[in-house]
């Protein structure tokens, strides 16, 4: 399958190009952006990121762990402190809260690594170029041979400044 690689200057053009390509049924699109532009990510895939589930699970695990840890340990060797119940909830809110944040934050980080498929690697995409960590945007479309011309015209119409055929 041929790969059409194009370079853009402005994020608005990328959004327009991606939207039109998707409308024409070209779904195998990848974009490379030098900075965060949520409108481009949403044009490609409007679903919210799965990372949010990791935060939720992490936070809930943290709060349960925090309270369970303190209550169980206080009851395991009961010592009367300051006339309070062995397991007294109000002071335990603090460590429960801290562990909610700790677990929530760590799981969010893990979620980013898994959802974004980030891991130490030396092989980058063939279409990737250091230009895309400068100030240019890359839009890469995989399509059938007979569609190459149409994709090319479409990208140029949205002011792609370069369009070329990558190695398939």
């Amino acid at each position: 399958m041929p790969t059409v690689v194009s370079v853009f200057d402005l994020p608005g053009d990328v959004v327009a190009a991606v939207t039109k390509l998707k409308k024409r049924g070209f779904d195998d699109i990848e974009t490379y952006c030098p900075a965060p532009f949520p409108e481009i990510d949403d044009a490609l895939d409007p679903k919210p990121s799965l990372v949010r589930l990791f935060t939720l699970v992490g936070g809930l695990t943290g709060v349960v762990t925090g309270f369970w840890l303190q209550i169980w340990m206080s009851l395991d060797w009961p010592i009367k402190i300051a006339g309070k119940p062995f397991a007294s909830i109000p002071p335990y809110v603090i460590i429960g809260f801290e562990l909610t944040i700790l677990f929530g934050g760590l799981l969010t980080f893990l979620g980013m690594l898994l959802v974004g498929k980030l891991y130490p690697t030396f092989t980058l995409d063939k279409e990737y170029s250091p230009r895309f960590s400068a100030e240019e945007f890359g839009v890469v479309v995989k399509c059938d041979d007979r569609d190459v011309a149409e994709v090319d015209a479409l990208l140029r119409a949205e002011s792609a400044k370069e369009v070329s055929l990558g190695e398939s």
Partner: protein
Amino acid sequence: MTPPAAAAPPMNAGAVPQDSQANVDIMNVITRGVSAPWLIILGLALLGVAQAVGTLAYQTYYGLGVAGYQAPVFWAVYIVTFVFWIGIGHAGTLISAILFLFRAKWRNAINRGAEAMTVFAVLTAALFPLIHIGRLWKFYFLIPYPNQRGLWVNFKSPLLWDVFAVNTYMTISIVFFFVGLIPDFAIARDRTTGVRKFIYTILALGWQGKSAQWKAHNRTVLHLSGLATPLVLSVHSVVSWDFAMSIVPGWHATIFAPYFVAGAVFGGFAMVMVVMIPVRRIYGLEEYITDYHFENMSRFILLTANICGYAYAMEYFIAWYSMVEFEQTSFYLRAFGPYWFSTWCMIIFNVVFPQLLWFKKLRTNIPFLFVLCFFINLGMWFERYVIIITSLSREFIPAAWGLYIPSAAELSVLAGSFCWFSMFFILFLKGGPIIAIAEVKEITIHEKAHGGAH
């Protein structure tokens, strides 16, 4: 239909035709080579760390007596310095998390420096409880772990809350810092060679700015900001409860949590200025960190200075209004007792001097801001000194009062802590981009799109 320019060479074959100005300017800080002043400052910092390590070895061998701990003052410079450094960290999280949630775009130029400062300040602070306990090898008693005595830690103690709060804060700050660095590591990977490229390639985790990566990244930054915001407020509140949960006159006050948080943000912003003003000057980053950024930070400093001023006044008012003789005596002796010097330093540096920031001329006068922030840092250190030392040395019965003077060992470790912090910061200047390049580009590209530069 003409086929597309199939003859054009593949994208990644050629070099970058024109690199962005932000990449060039900010990467230059890392790649332009090591200068003599940089080496000298690093050398001095290492020397300072070495002498503090020597003191610690001496203290560990002979015991905490060498730190001048004597009844009634058993919390002294080590705890003062611990609270000081934890406070410094707060501005970084405020800039990176809270201003992110408020969509204050001006934070983008300074957040990296502030986050780095946070991480290094917390790494400095975290050493002090260990130094303070004296018997370093027993530090693990603080952690709830199964042991053959079947004992657990006391979860009702604010000191234990502190262990959890500070460790959580350290972990989350480091994660936040690293997450923000990933796109910039990718920029560095694409623009370096040799060993540097190897290290940046690993640290960049295969980042290519794909939409799925940015999407996960944006969501992560949003959620980490949401988590870090209440966390940063909780951390200094918990630190304040180390004091406020006791019945010591001068400590036993409900205002402590917000008072400490405001003081932390105040001192932290001052430290961001003290660190970033020379960095900007030396590395010529005036185009990115503008006077506008310093003016905005000055406004934060003015606001938090006045919150601190209010808290100082309220402490005195409540001491008088409570009609508790111990509180009244404690506060009278703060201002007019043996520690009057530190109290007046605190009030003048933290409340009186910052009032000058009402004038725009001074808010944009960078050398003035540098000097002012230096004094604010001094004042904030004295604030903790006043709270801790004056309260402990003048508790209830005058027969149990005592005088405390910082010992040489404590001052040596205090100096070492500044060197330790500086060491990390100086090394980071050559290790990672000191300005968040991708986030700066977010603004420049937006301007390009809307300014019609094309």
